[in-house]
């Protein structure tokens, strides 16, 4: 079981200065495209120990300029467009390593997206859907350990370059009678990925043995006393098509401050049988602003049918628990 606990001091700051959120993020740093905040500019940060990342996100949404609409006679459809950029730094081995050692496998992801929002008015009741087209590039420096190779070739650094192209759609509707909120969504993403995260990890330390004249031996670690983390096993890079559906329920009996999420998905690739995944999550929302997530916890079961042939048991193989938190920085014009 991979589990992580987030202790960032950012959490103490989460109650201040939060603004519209563009995602209810999941363990992989993606999720519902809410985009229901105000038209304008948003800059936010996002911490995610699910994929061990810190993300900076910029989003700009434009209403139709000079839009004058009678509030008692709203048109059936009203469109807003927007665009955004995000950059993400990550540790392939765990974000805690950022604070304990410099010896981790770093990664970087940059992506951009275009959005289209339709606000639908049905007999005075508003709902809205959002369509997102996104594309991104990923580069990571991965540490691989080959125990059967010659000694000087056992440790290698591998540069991984990946990309992704995705289309997602979300539909949000406040429920009139119960005063709950429901979000449903679907997405399709084409990705170049690797299996580094599924490989077993070892800690490599370079030590030196010093023996004195009486025969007493001492092991000395010359540098990197925490060692470096390397992945062991058959490393692969491959293309996947990921299809996902999602649903979130934000009940009024919890003052619309908690979102319950479920998001099953299937990964198709040329080298594995279809990989079935299921995730559930809880997002904690800002008081009086249910579009703003201040943190969440996720439980995911990935590769439930063991398409990747792991020898680990079901729980160890599939279960991932993650936390995410946000600190939105500012809203300008």
């Amino acid at each position, binding site marked *: 079981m991979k589990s992580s606990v987030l202790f960032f001091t950012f959490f103490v700051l989460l109650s201040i200065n939060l603004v519209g959120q563009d995602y209810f993020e999941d363990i992989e740093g993606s999720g519902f495209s809410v985009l229901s905040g105000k038209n304008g500019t948003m800059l936010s940060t996002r911490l995610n120990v699910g994929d061990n990342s810190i993300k900076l996100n910029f989003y700009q949404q434009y209403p139709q300029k000079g839009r004058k609409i009678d509030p008692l006679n*709203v048109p059936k459809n009203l469109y807003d467009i927007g665009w955004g950029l995000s950059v993400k730094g990550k540790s392939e081995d765990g974000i805690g390593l950022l604070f304990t050692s410099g010896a981790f496998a770093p990664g970087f992801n940059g992506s951009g997206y275009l959005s289209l929002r339709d606000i639908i008015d049905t007999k005075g009741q508003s709902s*809205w859907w959002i369509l997102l087209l996104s594309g991104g590039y990923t580069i990571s420096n991965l540490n691989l350990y080959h125990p059967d190779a010659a000694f000087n070739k056992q440790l290698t650094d591998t540069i991984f370059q990946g990309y992704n192209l995705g289309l997602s759609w979300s539909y949000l509707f406040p429920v009139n009678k119960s005063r709950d909120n429901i979000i449903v969504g679907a997405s399709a993403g084409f990705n170049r990925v690797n299996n580094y995260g599924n490989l077993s990890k070892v800690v490599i330390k370079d030590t030196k043995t010093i023996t004195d004249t009486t025969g007493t031996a001492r092991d000395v670690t010359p540098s990197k006393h925490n060692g470096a983390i390397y992945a062991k096993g058959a490393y692969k890079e491959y293309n996947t098509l990921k299809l996902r559906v999602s649903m979130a329920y934000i009940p009024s009996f919890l003052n619309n401050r908690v979102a319950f999420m479920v998001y099953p998905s299937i990964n198709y690739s040329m080298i594995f049988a279809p990989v079935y995944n299921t995730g559930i999550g809880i997002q904690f929302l800002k008081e009086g602003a249910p579009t703003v997530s201040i943190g969440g916890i996720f439980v995911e079961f990935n590769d439930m049918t063991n398409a990747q042939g792991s020898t680990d048991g079901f729980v160890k193989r599939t279960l991932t628990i993650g936390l995410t938190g946000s600190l939105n920085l500012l809203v300008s014009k």
Partner: protein
Amino acid sequence: MAKIIFTSKVKGEITTVYASANGEPLAPKISSGVYSIDYTGNLPAGTVLQVIYKLVGMNGTDYSIEYKCSADGVQKSDPVNVSPVNGTIKTGDNIIVMLNIKL
């Protein structure tokens, strides 16, 4: 006729807002995350300026409408909905806010 200057700011994580003054639709402007909705015009003294807002957002979204209105430089207000008008979006019964300001 009295010179009317009405200014208002709508705050909160609302998705969008529509507004009108005496039936005339108004275009909201957004700056620093706040919607500004203003109206200027000439209306007969003693009449009522009716400003209507329709708020769109998720259930549970708090909002605040701060407004100022003057008629020939004299401050006016809606005695029922004194600025700031605070509330929470609950679809079905709380998405229309109506100000009636006697000039």
